[in-house]
């Protein structure tokens, strides 16, 4: 009896690990943008929703090959990120910080409602099922394995971009000192726009992986948005490594909590853990 129990618990833990990879990818773009521009995109999960619809329509309606549709979606969401920065964030960059948070909340309303208007409230399924992988008596969703691998790849790719390229060096420099960099010949406006596009691209990448596992509907952002913010805050806003670790901690709470109780209780425990940690380390576990 205890054998069976343990193997299912192990399965839950490993599934939590896979979920952690996905959550880590979700938080990556948001963290990058916060670290560099000092703005929280409340509508980040809605950008992901746009990417999911993009993959869905290109693949199902226009019969594009899946990979091509995904590449296009990444491009579209990267462009959306750029547009969001240029037309919504830029005008309030010098306003009070809370206004920057709120203005993207307005975008959240808009995107969610526009998606309802354009696509209806139906749940749409991509209809691509990756085979599940058996390991002993445990089974793992293939889509989650792929997501985990891509998430790791994304994190490593971003790391190299930030440490090995001129653009990355400029991004890191500007996130350290916003006022000095213009004197060094780096144009912050250009860096901000590029960072927004990269952040959008990461949202697009997350969308490609989510669409393999979940149905798309206009309110899907609300089920991923809160948890993504909390992960970023838990890891210390702008701290990408912290966010990465926090994603795995959160995923374990959800997976193992969901194993012992119902799924919602897993989330409840994770959120309460988050609130408790904030009181212990108000700037996040790995914050300054």
């Amino acid at each position, binding site marked *: 009896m205890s054998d069976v129990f343990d193997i299912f618990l192990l399965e839950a833990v490993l599934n939590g690990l896979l979920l952690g990879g996905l959550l880590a990818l979700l938080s990556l773009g948001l963290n990058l943008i916060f670290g560099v521009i000092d703005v*929280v995109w409340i509508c980040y999960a809605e950008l992901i929703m746009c990417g999911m619809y993009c993959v869905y329509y290109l693949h199902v309606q226009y019969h594009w090959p899946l990979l091509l549709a995904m590449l296009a979606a990444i491009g579209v969401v990267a462009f959306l990120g750029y547009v969001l920065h240029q037309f*919504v964030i830029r*005008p*309030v960059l010098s*306003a009070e*910080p*809370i*206004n920057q*948070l*709120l*203005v993207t*909340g*307005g*975008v*959240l*309303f*808009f*995107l*969610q*409602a*526009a998606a*309802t*208007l354009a696509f209806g*409230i139906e749940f749409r399924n991509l209809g691509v099922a990756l085979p599940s992988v058996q390991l002993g008596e445990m089974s793992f969703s293939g889509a989650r394995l792929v997501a985990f691998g891509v998430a790791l790849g994304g994190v490593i790719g971003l790391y190299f971009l930030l440490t090995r390229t001129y653009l990355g060096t400029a991004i890191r420099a500007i996130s350290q000192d916003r006022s000095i960099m213009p004197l060094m010949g780096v144009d912050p406006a250009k860096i901000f726009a590029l960072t927004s596009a990269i952040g959008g691209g990461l949202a697009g990448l997350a969308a490609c992986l989510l669409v393999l596992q979940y149905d798309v509907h*206009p309110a899907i952002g*609300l089920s991923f*948005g*809160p948890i993504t*913010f*909390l992960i970023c*805050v838990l890891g210390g*806003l702008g701290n990408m490594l912290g966010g990465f670790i926090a994603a795995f901690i959160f995923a374990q709470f959800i997976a193992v909590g969901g194993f012992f*109780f*119902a799924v*919602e*209780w897993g*989330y*409840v425990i994770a*959120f*309460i853990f*988050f*609130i408790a940690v*904030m*009181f212990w380390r*108000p*700037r996040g576990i790995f914050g300054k």
Partner: protein
Amino acid sequence: MNYPLHLAILVLLWGYIYTSWSLMGRLGLVSFGHGAFMGIGAYTVVMLWNSYSLSPWIGAFVALALSAMVAVVIGYPCFRFRIVGHYFALVTLALSEVARLIITAARDTTGGSLGATPVTALHQGNTMAFGALQFAGKEIWLVIVFAFWLLGLWVWRMVDRSMGRLALQAISEEEEAAASIGIHVTRAKLRITIISALMTCVGGILYAQYQLYVNPDTVSGIAISLQMVFGVIAGGMFVMLGPTVGAAFTLLLAEGLRLAFGNRYPALDTTIYGVMLVLFIIYMPKGILGAALDAFRRKPQSAP
């Protein structure tokens, strides 16, 4: 006659709830967690009535006690450890999600995401059940919400004229400096948070008893919390009637578009509303009423 009455009730009820939120919001405490207090109010009362036949009058006290407790448990550490701005908004966001998820997860008693209906006390053509706080007539609801709306404005006024408001304003501008001149930052913030939470909780109770239906997604969670924040921003959070103007504006926008287009475009109102919010925050951060008052004040001065 019923429809305009219904609209008036909703405007006053939401006006009251938005006013409660603004008590904190205008002093720099932007909370995304008020959905939790509304949810506590609505669900405590309905669940106690359904499961234990406890009158909402008593249930209300339980709900208020619970809200005050949650406000202290979340508020005290937040203020003690200087969790402000983004971080405060996101911690309270977690709170409102916790409330929604607990209500959804306890589906055996609460009915989960399908919502719940209070057991009716309006038997045999009774139009009023005072003990159960259920009234069939809309007129009496109009009187009730109007009274609470006035109460909300009165609290606003009292807060405005108190020393506490000056203290909080100082805190919202420069917390360290305020503390250095002897303002008890934690206590000042906690006091206004409890007032605001209790008022929002009452709003939840009224909403549940008026609609006679509760649903975790419409009384708690991130969606309703954002609705409060943005309703207030649209109306203007720095003037007393701003939140009410916000409530009226959002409701009339939704109803106006529904009358003009029928139900052909279900989310058209929120789409337009979203665009307007973005424009408001960028170009009119004081909201409709705030901007209108500014324009009105400027005119006499420009005359020679």
